């Protein structure tokens, strides 16, 4: 071998150059792949946050309201009691506007239209809770109409108000006067997280309360069922079962089930839990059971993987000092595998939290206004109708009022935050308890 064949160490030969170039290209491909992914993520986040961030703030109108005991009595005899209370609020609003010289020839109907339809219900709720309020004057903090709220969020302008049948330019001018006076304020919208859904007439009152509760209940059901069942199945398959064709078939089936479209579990849930077992439709119990079926394969696969990763020396050592097979599993293998199991479970739960399709079939895509109780004597455990977070997003995107677009994006942000918390928890648990050999 002559030196010329090797070439100089300082000067790269063509083959090395080629290899270096190939590596450079590969790095570029990788970088651009990550770039594309980040770009897509940024676009998604910008569009969602751009649309939805405004839903976390809401405009309120606060002014003194006077009601007499006689007026309450009359209102309570009406069929539409909340409508009667609305009238009382309107009278008080008019008095307030005149007192502060804010009307300035605004048509009365326009002034009344500034308040949300929800006001009557808020007011009635307040009166029922505080019967002493009769005959006194007190400050009420009421939601403004969705269009007025939209004006302070840039959705409604003087131009669109001219064309829009649900808002007039005069209302916007009056709103500005009220804001200058300090009666109309925009503040953080806690109600968005606590209020139940609202009908198409009052997007300003719609919130995620029922959806968040429903999602929590379902996650509780999934956690309580999928974790023990999944872990038991995995331990048996991994530590006790003999390797034969039956376990092979089971293994293939579990892998297959993990890839089955989730809507299939919805059909199954409708047939088994609602039609056969006669559990309540729309209930978090049924939703949780369906999502349990859906999450089980994910949990079993991740649990088996973390059991496999425990070195056999641990088991051998336990068996060597006289532990039974079960003792070796429960005293040594399982505690060591627990971080991996929990990580897999949390990721499975996060997947279940964002699932919509199976819930369509079991009646959870619904307008639900009552907060579901975790337990009631009639409906049993988690048996009362409810919705879930992803379902609420789906529902709101179908509403005709443009204010629901903002609400839907706000719900997506909330869901993303929940998912972020769960995934962060999974990473935290893994980092904290993970053992390396």
């Amino acid at each position, binding site marked *: 071998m002559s030196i010329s064949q090797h070439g100089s160490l300082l000067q790269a030969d063509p083959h090395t150059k080629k290899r270096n170039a190939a590596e450079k290209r590969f790095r570029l491909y990788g970088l651009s792949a990550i770039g594309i992914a980040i770009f897509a993520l940024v676009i998604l986040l910008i569009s969602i946050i751009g649309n939805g961030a405004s839903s976390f703030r809401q405009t309120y109108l606060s002014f003194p309201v006077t009601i007499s005991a006689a007026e309450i009595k009359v209102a309570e005899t*009406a069929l539409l009691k909340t409508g009667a209370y609305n009238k009382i609020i309107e009278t008080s609003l008019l008095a307030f506007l005149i007192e502060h010289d804010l009307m300035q020839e605004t048509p009365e109907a326009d002034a009344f239209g500034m308040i949300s339809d929800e006001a*009557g219900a808020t007011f009635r709720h307040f009166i029922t809770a505080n019967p002493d309020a009769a005959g006194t004057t007190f400050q009420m903090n009421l939601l403004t109409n969705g269009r007025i709220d939209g004006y302070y969020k840039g959705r409604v302008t003087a131009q669109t108000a001219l064309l829009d049948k649900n808002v007039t330019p005069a209302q916007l001018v009056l709103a500005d006067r009220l804001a200058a006076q300090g009666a109309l304020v925009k503040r953080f919208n806690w109600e968005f997280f606590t209020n139940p859904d609202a009908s*198409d007439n009052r997007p300003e009152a719609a919130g995620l309360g029922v959806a968040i509760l429903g999602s929590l209940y379902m996650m509780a059901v999934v956690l309580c069922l999928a974790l023990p069942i999944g872990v038991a199945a995995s331990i048996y398959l991994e530590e006790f079962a003999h390797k034969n064709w039956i376990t092979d078939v089971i293994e293939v089936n579990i892998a297959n089930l993990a890839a089955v479209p989730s809507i299939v579990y919805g059909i199954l849930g409708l047939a088994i839990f609602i039609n056969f*077992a006669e*559990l309540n439709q729309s209930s978090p119990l049924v939703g949780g059971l369906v999502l349990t079926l859906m999450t089980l394969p994910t949990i079993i696969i991740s649990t088996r993987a973390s059991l496999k990763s425990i070195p056999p020396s641990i088991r051998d050592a336990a068996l060597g000092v006289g532990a039974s097979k079960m003792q070796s599993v429960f005293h040594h293998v399982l*505690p060591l595998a627990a971080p991996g199991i929990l990580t897999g479970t949390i990721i499975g739960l996060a997947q279940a939290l964002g699932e919509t399709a199976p819930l*369509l079939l079991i009646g959870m895509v619904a307008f639900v*206004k*009552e907060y579901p109780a975790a337990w009631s004597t009639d409906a049993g*455990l988690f048996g009362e109708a409810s919705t879930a977070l992803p379902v609420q997003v789906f529902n709101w995107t179908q509403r005709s009022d443009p204010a629901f677009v903002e609400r839907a994006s706000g719900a997506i942000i909330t869901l993303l935050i929940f998912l972020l918390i769960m995934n962060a928890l999974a990473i935290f648990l893994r980092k904290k308890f993970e053992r390396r050999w």
Partner: protein
Amino acid sequence: MLNLEVLMTVLKMTVSTLAITVLSATVVVARDNVQIAGSSTVLPYAAIVAEFFGENTDFPTPVVESGGSSAGLKRFCEGVGENTIDIANASRAIKNSERATCAENGVEDIVEVRIGYDGIVFASDINGNSFAFTPSDWYTALAAEIPIDGVMAVNPNTNWSQVNADLASQMIVAFIPGTKHGTREVFEEKVLLQGCEDTGAMAAMTLIGMDEDTAEGACMSVRTDGISVDIDGDYTETLARIEADSNGIGVFGLSFYENNTDKLQVATMTGVVPTTQSISNGDYPVSRPLYFYIKAAHVGVIPGLKEFASFFVADELAGPDGPLAAYGLVSDPELEDTQAAVANVTLMGQ
């Protein structure tokens, strides 16, 4: 190892919770709220009434699901019992075949409640051309084949001015409801078929030798060359399509249009502007009745069912000055009869 022991305790606790859950699942369940499903057109009205019902009575707010008229009636007809729905919303009358299915499953006693009418309107981008349509225009623009000189020819029209010289020159781009929607049926019958008869195309087809059924079928078959687009989603999708393509003209419900008047302009039909007024007196031709159906066997079993139905059709809600009319429902001039029928639980066919 302390942390791991904590984890084990969590695992053990979940196992015991599992046992409790399984036990409780065997408890006989019951519900105290009214359960409704069906048409997505009726859904907003039902939701508005349900909201008021919850606020103004001591009964819990009913649960309202959408899913479409057919899906709702299918679930309605699944049987009697607490795990079936109490009310089905429909944007069309129940079919005989559906009643037969119902009867087979023991749902024989049904109360039909007509809540009012829904106008179907044609709307386009607010900044585009204005249109004054007749059913004939829509037939000539959208039919798959039209009779020309005694033979059925593929529809050659691509511009509204070709269809009718009075219309603005604009490419034909129509977003019409897909076949799973109840609205499609109304569109076919009240617009396409009407236009087919008005233009004389129906007569021409009979001359060619088609029998009546085939001719009607030909009248209502929509072109599939991309000029007419079926929208299977909701009106929000139709609106998004129009915002993306300003030539587009979409079919909407009146209430949807009324909530989006800053983005859409409505076309007249045979010279009439669609309003709740012009629809209720019958001047505006494209409208349809909206219904809900009550399972009579559940009345008295499910608390609040009858009260909800009476509440729905009360003057304060479904009347011309009520919140439903404000949202876009055309109130029924014969609402009093409906109120009586609900009060007496008058069954269908009685």
